[in-house]
């Protein structure tokens, strides 16, 4: 049955989209979670809706306008964050609501805009992915992975400790904008697959799952990408076998199930680990007790 499926063009397109999203979202997500910005993807997702609606309104490709508007939104969020004022929290919230309301409003006005179309962007419509969409998604995915490969080392330092990054002479402002913009591109890639409202889930849940099991940053990212692919392809398959299953929701629920599973497994892994490390620690503990 899978072999028959693989020969269908629609399924092939959906599969490629799911694979790319499954790889990219957790890769960027690892940096974002490390930076304590787990909700950044949500914020950008909200703003991107206005971009999609602008595309319908102006008759341009919604993916293109979504890229532009979500980049603007991501830069705005980063600027608010960097100023570090307490009001930043509220400013971000305002931006999110504005994004959703603006999107719904513009979509209503736009010729050919309908609730069905709105829903397909809010909740994803992987089955309606076109070859053109795949080209755009693939190019964005290459850009995202390229950023991770080229700037990964610097982004690790930045996301771990911004002050350290500054004291190492790294271009902190540039890197901060880079990670925000990369997140924006990821949101647009994932929008067709899981939908704008669930985009962030694919950036955060696989990372949260992976860190239950790993010890290092690199392995966390690698495993998160694997979990991302498993969830997105699994969700796609589930929705292909039963037309009643919406793919976006299936992907996110699968990812969540994986998280719950890892939580249990991780407890065992960690228990074993503390036992082994407490053995090596014992002499040090003794010194600390005396002191």
């Amino acid at each position, binding site marked *: 049955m899978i072999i028959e499926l693989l020969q269908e063009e629609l399924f092939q397109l959906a599969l490629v989209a799911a694979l790319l999203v499954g790889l990219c979202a957790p890769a960027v997500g690892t940096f974002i979670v490390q930076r304590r910005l787990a909700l950044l993807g949500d914020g950008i997702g909200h703003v991107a809706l206005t971009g999609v609606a602008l595309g319908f309104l102006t008759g341009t490709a919604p993916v293109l306008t979504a890229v532009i508007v979500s980049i603007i939104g991501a830069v705005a969020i980063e600027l608010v964050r960097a100023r570090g004022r307490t009001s930043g929290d509220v400013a971000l919230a305002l931006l999110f609501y504005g994004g959703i309301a603006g999107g719904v409003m513009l979509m209503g006005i736009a010729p050919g805009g309908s609730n069905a179309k709105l829903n397909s962007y809010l909740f994803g419509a992987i089955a309606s992915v076109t070859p053109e969409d795949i080209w755009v998604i693939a190019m964005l995915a290459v850009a995202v992975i390229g950023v991770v490969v080229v700037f990964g080392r610097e982004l690790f330092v930045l996301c771990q*400790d911004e002050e350290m990054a500054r004291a190492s002479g790294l271009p902190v402002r540039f890197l901060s904008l880079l990670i925000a913009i990369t997140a924006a591109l990821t949101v647009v890639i994932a929008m067709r697959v899981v939908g704008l409202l669930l985009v962030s889930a694919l950036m955060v849940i696989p990372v949260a799952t992976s860190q239950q099991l790993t010890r290092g940053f690199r392995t966390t990212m690698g495993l998160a990408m694997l979990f991302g692919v498993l969830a997105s392809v699994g969700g796609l398959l589930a929705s292909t076998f039963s037309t009643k299953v919406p793919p976006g929701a299936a992907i996110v629920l699968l990812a969540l199930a994986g998280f719950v599973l890892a939580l249990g497994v991780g407890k065992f892994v960690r228990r074993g680990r503390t036992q082994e490390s407490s053995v090596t620690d014992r002499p040090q503990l003794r010194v600390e007790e005396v002191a």
Partner: protein
Amino acid sequence: MTETAFSMTGGRVSYDGKSVLQGIDLTVSSGEVVALLGANGSGKSTLVRALLGLTPLSGGRTLLYGVPPAKFRDWWRIGYVPQRLQVGGGVPATVREVVASGRIARQSRLRRTNAADRSAVAQALEAVRLTARANDPVQSLSGGQQQRVLIARALAGEPDTYVMDEPTAGVDAETQQLLADTLAGLVLGGKTVVLVAHELGPLEPIITRGVLIREGRVVHDGPPPRPEGECARPGHDHQHAHAVESVAGPLTGWQGEPR
């Protein structure tokens, strides 16, 4: 030729209109081992951050190897040891990954990690005796061990100048001694050290100059304080419980001295 690592003239820092540092003149030549001393809130941590350009000056100017921080490019010459290890958002990172990130100023964007990087990281881990924990997540280490990770990260970068913000605060005696031994080795190798401390403890013998900060001003700059009385007794170590709160401790000798 002695170089000047740091030079601040008329340095002033204020947060939200409240003055934290004022009229700071401080020059540190290479090879010096300077301790910035003072009570909590005296501004000594702000001073090291200002020396590095991490906190902007609201007046005066500061130079790093003769260059303003914004234009400084040779960041590999500086090894910064912050007060605390930041453990980002719950994403694990191994001790080795964090220590290796100390090479960042020496590793240009596309350069792959080479044998020199690996051996510098291995040596740094060995120096702080964390080789056995290299593959453990830093989150699983104790406070003293995390402090050693920070020191190893600076060591890995093989800088000329070390800037340490309270490297001994809240750290066990073993780690303090380890730090003292490590620093003694660096000083022999001609490195420059600027460190913030509450009390010097085992670091005392290697310090060449003490700068006492009080209420945002330099109130003493000269030879380091020598412990007196109880604290000077051989075998006395500064691990008493009040160490963290105590401002005076080994500084008591200074307070009444004419400058």
